[in-house]
């Protein structure tokens, strides 16, 4: 199965949406499906007509009972068409062969009245499962709820509605001079001609509803498999893989070239359209200007501001020189030639010297690389002490934090006070053995602490974090007593934590 070629959108769908997709599929392919239904139903109907002795009620029952026979090839057709290969009428034999095999037999016998018929049919016909495997698979797929049964029930009623509609339209719209359709006889009296019309109307209703019924069952089956096997994810992953494999530059160049061609084409098409816009017959020839005049007119019109656009471009152009003026004579000072040659020699030897030194250095480096004197020591960066992760070393905290906080408070700098307090508590967390990676947000830090430490060990951290976030992001400056309370809590916390953990 090649999911890339599927001609429907793959996404997880609920059961009702799955049904709707089936109706959309059937509408899209209604004509091919409908003709294929008749191609099989017509011979079957003629055969049944002969076998039932031309009794309309039995005839209809026989046709109705054989419905799976006409539905199976529709299912096969849709399954091929969905993957981009709709079988043509020439492949009718193959489609029939795939649809009408021994797996269809249960659907004509004990499974004919099975309410989930159209939903389980793809299992038997397309997956070719039978026996125990089919039963296990049905169990898996059946987790979809009652929707397939509702589908059968509703489609049955759709048939009845269409049949009743056709009969009523015939009854109401046939003029009075013509023989009137007897509605009572059409439903009850199987010997009357009206009954035949009713039966034919029913056949028409069958044929119209059948594609929708088959497609809806099939789409439900697809929706269920998409859910169980995540087809949409497979498709997305495959596309991502293809994008990664394809060289990117080629694509963009191709795209640009395509774009240019397209632009040229549309410009040409537009011009043609403009020229053909004026209908020839309706314009009298003597009113038309001569071709030359017309061309000038067109030029004039096209030069108007509304067409095209203006660009200001700055480029360098050579200053036009007077042709007649003689070239200025360059007079070199005396001895310039010798000096230049000397300088050249000097540079040459200098460069050669540099080259030799560079070669020597290179050789030295290579030799050192290849010297078999044991493995070189890898360059190691000294590991950071656990308690001072990079984010925490930004600014050294004062020794006596409580005093520093109080000092800031008395200065009136509440922001600095709270900031000190918060950073100190993070440092304390690190001291308690919590590893805080770089780039951790306040919330994540709190989450980490909650996970790693028991609740009593957290102290004022949660309250402090909320107040700090309020200040940092919401500019909600906390009151001085609140900061003092927090400071007191913090002192108690660090004292207790320090005592428990030990220095």
């Amino acid at each position: 199965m090649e999911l890339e070629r599927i001609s429907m959108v793959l996404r997880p769908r609920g059961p009702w949406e799955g049904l709707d997709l089936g109706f959309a599929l059937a509408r899209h392919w209604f004509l091919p499906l409908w003709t294929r239904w008749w191609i099989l139903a017509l011979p079957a109907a003629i055969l049944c007509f002969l076998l039932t002795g031309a009794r309309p009620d039995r005839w209809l029952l026989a046709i109705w009972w054989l419905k799976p026979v006409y539905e199976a090839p529709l299912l096969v057709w849709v399954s091929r068409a969905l993957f981009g290969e709709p079988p043509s009428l020439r492949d009718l034999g193959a489609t029939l062969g795939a649809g009408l095999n021994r797996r269809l037999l249960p659907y004509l016998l004990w499974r004919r009245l099975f309410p989930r018929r159209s939903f389980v049919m793809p299992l038997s016909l397309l997956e070719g499962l039978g026996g125990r495997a089919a039963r296990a698979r049905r169990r898996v797929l059946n987790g979809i709820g009652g929707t397939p049964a509702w589908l059968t029930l509703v489609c049955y009623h759709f048939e009845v509605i269409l049949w009743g509609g056709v009969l009523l339209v015939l009854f109401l719209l046939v003029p009075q001079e013509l023989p009137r359709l007897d509605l009572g006889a059409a439903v009850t009296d199987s010997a009357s001609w009206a009954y035949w019309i009713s039966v034919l109307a029913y056949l028409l209703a069958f044929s119209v509803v059948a594609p929708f019924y088959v497609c809806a069952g099939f789409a439900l089956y697809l929706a269920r498999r998409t859910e169980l096997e995540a087809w949409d994810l497979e498709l997305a992953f495959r596309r991502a893989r293809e994008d990664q494999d394809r060289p990117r530059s080629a694509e963009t160049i191709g795209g640009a070239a395509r774009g240019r061609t397209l632009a040229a084409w549309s410009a040409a098409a537009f011009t043609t359209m403009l020229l053909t816009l004026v209908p020839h017959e309706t314009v009298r020839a003597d009113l038309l200007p001569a071709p030359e005049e017309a061309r000038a007119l067109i030029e004039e019109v096209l030069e108007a501001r509304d067409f095209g656009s203006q660009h200001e471009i700055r480029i360098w152009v050579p200053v036009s020189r007077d042709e007649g003026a003689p070239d200025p004579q360059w007079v070199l000072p005396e001895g310039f030639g010798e000096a230049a040659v000397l300088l050249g020699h000097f540079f040459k030897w200098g460069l050669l010297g540099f080259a030799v030194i560079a070669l020597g250095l290179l050789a030295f480096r290579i030799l050192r690389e290849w010297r078999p004197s044991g493995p070189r020591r890898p360059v190691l960066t000294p590991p950071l002490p656990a308690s001072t992760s990079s984010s925490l070393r930004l600014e050294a905290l004062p020794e006596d934090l409580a005093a520093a906080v109080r000092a800031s408070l008395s200065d009136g700098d509440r922001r600095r006070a709270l900031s000190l307090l918060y950073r100190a508590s993070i440092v304390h967390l690190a001291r308690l053995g919590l590893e805080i990676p770089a780039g951790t947000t306040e919330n994540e830090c709190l989450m980490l602490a909650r996970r790693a430490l028991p609740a009593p060990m957290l102290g004022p951290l949660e309250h402090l974090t909320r107040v700090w976030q309020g200040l940092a992001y919401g500019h909600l400056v906390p009151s001085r007593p609140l900061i003092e309370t927090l400071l007191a809590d913090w002192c108690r916390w660090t004292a207790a934590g320090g005592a428990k953990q030990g220095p």
Partner: protein
Amino acid sequence: MPPPIDTIRFNETPEGVELGLQVAGPVPRALALLLDTLIRAALVLALTPLLALSGFGLGLMLLGFFLLEWFYPVFFEVRTGATPGKSAFGLRVVHDDGTPVGLAASMIRNLLRVVDFLPALYGAGLVSTLVDRDFRRLGDLAAGTLVVYAQGQERQRAIPEALPQPLPPGLGSETQRAILSFAERGQRLSLARRVELAEILTAVSGENGELAVARVSGWANWLARGPGVRSP
């Protein structure tokens, strides 16, 4: 290649955002209609005791029938967007640009119920819903309304925790969404299928089996939770 078949109708907003409306098909709509009919029948039955008040009661009852017949859907559609039957199936009536249905449109679509009912039991409406691209009946076509699935609040599904790993470069937003979706829905797939799906993405780096699943889950965690927090 024609656009793939789906039951979503797209509307582009002036900001260039494409809003998708999931239109509802004939089967759920028919069942919702049936449910509404049953509710209406129950209300009609509840009105019959008014007959005990002789002439005045009869008048009241007939008035009630009239209101039920013509204004039962309008009342609910304008108030909550759907009749009780439609709500039961998760359907909503909206204008075809996606805005909630107004009084005028609701009146038009429900007055034209009569036309849809012809020739019997919504025959015309059925044919119209089967033929129309957005499953609209004649009343919907006239009023410019759609019946869509109400998109409820997207339920947040938990992503199983794993060590976040940075995503390889060059994966578009669609793929990233698929990776998140994989982590969310992965638990409900079989193990073999999970491995098969993950291996499609990790084939470049050459991981196989459960390692591939773990790698993709790591990416999903990186997308969902960011690189900072690691599970202890």
